């Protein structure tokens, strides 16, 4: 995938670019808003990572200008500003996701993956399938093999989100934001408990587990390769 990184902190930029290249992406970089805008409008990208505070042209303005040119490339904002309502401002300006510094690289990668995949959605699905686990979105029912699984509404949403992002790392923050719609960090790791309950329902008694913990990152649902 082709990614544009606009970041004025050169060390953070180098780290970001290296990390993304290691993950197999093609990366262009810019260290101020004007260069960023020129690049964004002249080349096709699959997604852009843009810092909120940039010299010459502010990150918010940059994204607004890109959006005015009917460019819909997904944008992930990076911000070192305080949080309370900056997220809202960022999303209003046309950003698709918002990550506060300091962030874990796996978090950034996971969100970027989710953004880029959202851009190329397959035909509207009414069934999701991972291995022998099936989720019927119309009847809101789940079954593994021939055994039906009884899920609470929230467990269903959790499983749905994981399965829509099958074979992708999904972080705890992403789950909290997408499944529960909370944008704060609970003191206790509540997500782990929800996951372990879900795991008990879909994986217990089966030889091949589907829901995996990715150490230091989050979770991933995938059938054994």
């Amino acid at each position: 995938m082709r990614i544009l990184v606009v970041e004025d902190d050169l060390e953070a930029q180098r780290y970001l670019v290296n990390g993304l290249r290691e993950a197999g992406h093609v990366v262009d970089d810019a260290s101020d808003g004007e260069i960023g805008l020129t690049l964004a409008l002249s080349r096709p990208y699959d997604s852009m990572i843009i810092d909120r505070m940039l010299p010459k042209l502010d990150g918010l303005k940059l994204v607004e200008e890109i959006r005015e040119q009917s460019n819909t490339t997904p944008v992930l904002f990076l911000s070192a500003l305080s949080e309370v309502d900056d997220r809202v401002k960022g999303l209003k300006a046309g950003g698709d996701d918002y990550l506060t510094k300091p962030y874990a690289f796996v978090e950034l990668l996971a969100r970027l993956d989710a953004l880029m995949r959202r851009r190329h959605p397959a035909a509207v699905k009414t069934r999701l399938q991972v291995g022998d686990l099936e989720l019927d979105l119309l009847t809101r029912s789940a079954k593994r093999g021939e055994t039906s699984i009884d899920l609470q509404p929230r467990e269903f949403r959790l499983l749905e989100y994981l399965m829509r992002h099958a074979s992708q790392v999904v972080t705890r923050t992403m789950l909290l934001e997408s499944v529960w719609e909370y944008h704060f960090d609970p003191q206790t790791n509540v997500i782990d408990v929800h996951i372990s309950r879900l795991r008990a329902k879909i994986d217990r008694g089966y030889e091949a587990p589907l829901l995996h913990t990715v150490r230091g990152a989050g979770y991933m649902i995938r059938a054994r390769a």
Partner: protein
Amino acid sequence: MRAPKTLRTLAFRIVLVYVAIFAASAVALVAFTYWNTKRALDAETDQTIEAEIAGLSEQYQRLGIAGLTDVIIGRSMRGSLGLYLLTDAQKRPIAGNLDTWPQAKPREENFIEFDFERRAGGGIERHRARGKTFALTGGFQLLVARDVDERYKTQRLFTTTLPWTVILMLALGLGGGALMSRNLLARLDSINRISREIMAGDLTRRLPLTRDGDEFDTLAENLNRMLERTERLMKGMRTVTDSIAHDLRTPLNRLRNRLEGVLNHLGGENVEAREIEAAVGETDTLIGTFNALLLIAEAEAGVGREAMAPVDLPVVVEGISELYGPVAEEKGVSLEVAPSGTARIEGNGSLISQALANLVDNAIKYTPAGGLVRIAVQNTSAGIALSVADNGPGIPSGDHARVLERFVRLEASRNSPGTGLGLSLVAAVARLHDAKLELSDNMPGLKATLLFAGRMSRRPALAS
């Protein structure tokens, strides 16, 4: 039933007092003038009567009863205002233009006031007279009086019209007062309405000015100047927190990046990798504490006010109890939600959720297995109360105020994880919403209550 708003205003009350004072002094002035004039006129009448009596008694002494009779007949014929009656000792008339001796009782110095019938034109009119009786030597009685009917009628007219005049004066005064209060109210209402909007978070609003340049404009100008200052201070606060955030987050970001880089480089399981991982964990704790402090500072500065919207508390409670349910169950603590109807407040939903999450998190953390944590929303007379109660060890009542301060954690819990900022954040969120955070003894356990003053939402809540 309450009086209409116009009648309860200060302007109307001031007008009312003025009208009352004005009416009272007008009545006093008129009454004084009236009494004085009456006294002067009475005195004049009395002097005339006295002089006449003196003259007549002199005639009697000089000419005897026959002479006096002649004089009285003569005077009676003149048909002026003078009234005369001469009688013998048994009050039988001898001469004069009055037919009978009046029944009225003499007042001071033999003066009397009485009504008599006067032939005028074709009929008879009752007139009022004032006169004096005089006993002559030989048992004869003399009455000399004057017809004062004109003056009496004027006086009657005066006493009957005066109350009506006062009533009219009061009515006009009250009407004018109400009109004036309505005008004042319209100005005050606009100032009040806009002040409320500003308090609700829109600091860019200003009070309107008219071209009159009156006291209200001066007031509005001063308030506007104050608002400008407040807005500038708020912006300053934002800039400060933003730059602190930026200046600390940038190096923290680099630190975390470097540690992650080293970790990737090392790979696999070894002592160094574990140490670096622990260091990454410490960085995250540092970031967590920093974020919590920043959020508290912002909430206290009122930064979240712009995002205020109607929030249905039972919906917030449902979300958080659903999020924490499994955590509680895993610990063997029952998490209960007391049933309640809708309870809407104007607030920042995200911050209230976070505050409630902190309270529930704490309650579960400090309640031993088998315990109970209960969340309730209640409409009380003091406002809407959102409470989280547990039956854990509680907090000694002397420490209730202390735990709300930043960083304070009680000795007994020093070793459990957490930043110690949880309750401070709840307190800051409470202040942002003009709510009160109260800690009380749940006998046993701790009960934390967020009391939102009865400031109900004016707009309907968004469907969630």
